[in-house]
């Protein structure tokens, strides 16, 4: 179908964007790549939006390293993330995720900030940043604030971003020398949303494991993490399946999604050498 927009404004800088969002109230919608938002507008799942196009704001795209952290601007496109040398070195999980996200033409416009703010629980980037223990950087009318990723995802398509705020960047610790990051998922066709997927990050402090496509938000599987830290893969698989409560839908039953999650965990464990 055809999109129905209430209005469109192109923000010249962040202050301008925040002013526009303030004017628009609850009809305000931040637009950049539009690869989810415009699809939703086309299907009339969202109508009358006052679109604030922040895609031309300079300084919100790109990847930098400072003070032991990697900072990724919200406007960084998937295609650019996938080929970025800093991401390849410090956040290879995100580079792996890019290959799973939709198709090349979508990745040429979609942005990481858009994907995180949209908060689709079946998408890769939300689960990745949860496993990476990222910090989300927001700007609002009253100034900047940071939100820990554990507090960011609230429900399906719902985050800690308040009305009038914009997600401007995320940051995460640079990779340790022996850090392991790996993403595995099962999808019916290339580019489809996964039936289930796992992101594992192993640092000196322990394993972080998140799951996508198995709940209303990306899930941090803390029981499985503890078992993996103890080197017990069987207990980890049991714990993981107990921690997940996926819905059944036309793609797969909840039980099958749980089964896949366990299989993926064993595959990851084999691939990384199986030591805690």
């Amino acid at each position: 179908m055809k999109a129905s927009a209430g209005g469109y404004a192109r923000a010249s800088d962040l202050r301008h964007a925040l002013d526009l969002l303030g004017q628009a109230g609850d009809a305000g919608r931040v637009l950049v790549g539009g690869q989810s938002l415009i699809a939703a507008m086309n299907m009339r799942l969202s109508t009358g939006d006052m679109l604030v196009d922040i895609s031309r704001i300079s300084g919100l795209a790109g990847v930098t390293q400072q003070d032991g952290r990697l900072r990724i601007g919200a406007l960084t496109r998937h295609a650019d993330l996938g080929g970025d040398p800093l991401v390849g070195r410090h956040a290879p999980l995100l580079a792996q995720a890019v290959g799973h996200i939709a198709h090349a033409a979508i990745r040429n416009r979609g942005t990481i900030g858009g994907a995180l703010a949209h908060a689709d629980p079946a998408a890769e980037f939300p689960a990745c940043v949860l496993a990476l223990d990222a910090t989300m950087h927001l700007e609002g009318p009253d100034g900047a604030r940071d939100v820990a990723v554990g507090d960011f995802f609230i429900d399906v398509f719902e985050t800690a971003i308040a009305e009038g705020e914009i997600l401007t960047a995320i940051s995460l610790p640079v990779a340790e020398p022996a850090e392991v990051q790996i993403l595995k998922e099962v999808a019916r066709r290339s580019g489809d949303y996964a039936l289930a997927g796992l992101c594992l990050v192993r640092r000196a402090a322990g394993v972080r494991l998140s799951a996508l496509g198995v709940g209303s938000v990306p899930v941090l599987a803390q029981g499985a993490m503890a078992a993996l830290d103890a080197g017990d893969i069987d207990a980890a698989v049991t714990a993981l399946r107990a921690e997940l409560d996926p819905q059944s839908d036309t793609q797969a039953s909840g039980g099958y999604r749980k089964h896949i999650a366990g299989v993926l965990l064993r595959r990851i464990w084999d691939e990384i050498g199986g030591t805690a």
Partner: protein
Amino acid sequence: MTDVFRDKIDIALSVNGEPVEARVPAGRHLIDFLRLDLGLTGAHASCEHGVCGACTVRVDGDAVRGCLMLAAQADGAEVWTIEGLSDSGAIRDLQDAFVARNALQCGFCTPGMLVACADLLTRDAVPARDEIREHLSGNYCRCTGYEAIVDAVESVAKARRGAA
């Protein structure tokens, strides 16, 4: 600079190498702007939610979905559609290979398919058949079964590097 919300937006862009100025409704997709306002009906509007790839056009050098971008967002952009790419001869070898290999039957997907294929062929190495399939995974063809399309892309990639 647009400093307030508008329901009609003035845009100036380049389409197939020619300057275009227009006033577009806020919700107008790029693909409808190209097809309905400019009469460039090569690329197709089909699923209108980014799944089928029939609307794929080139914007600022990248293959993008014409149905998932607003015309308002194309202000200042350089847009190429199959009409311009055909007239310029930029992808003549690819088009010839599609004909030679029977890589199209009804032709509905072909304009989008060609833009997606051309995007892959700008890379340095000859892509493996798996890479070609993966790159075209977002462009549906209901006629050919894809094998002939993969053949065509592979043959052009090799020919362009003198290895055919």
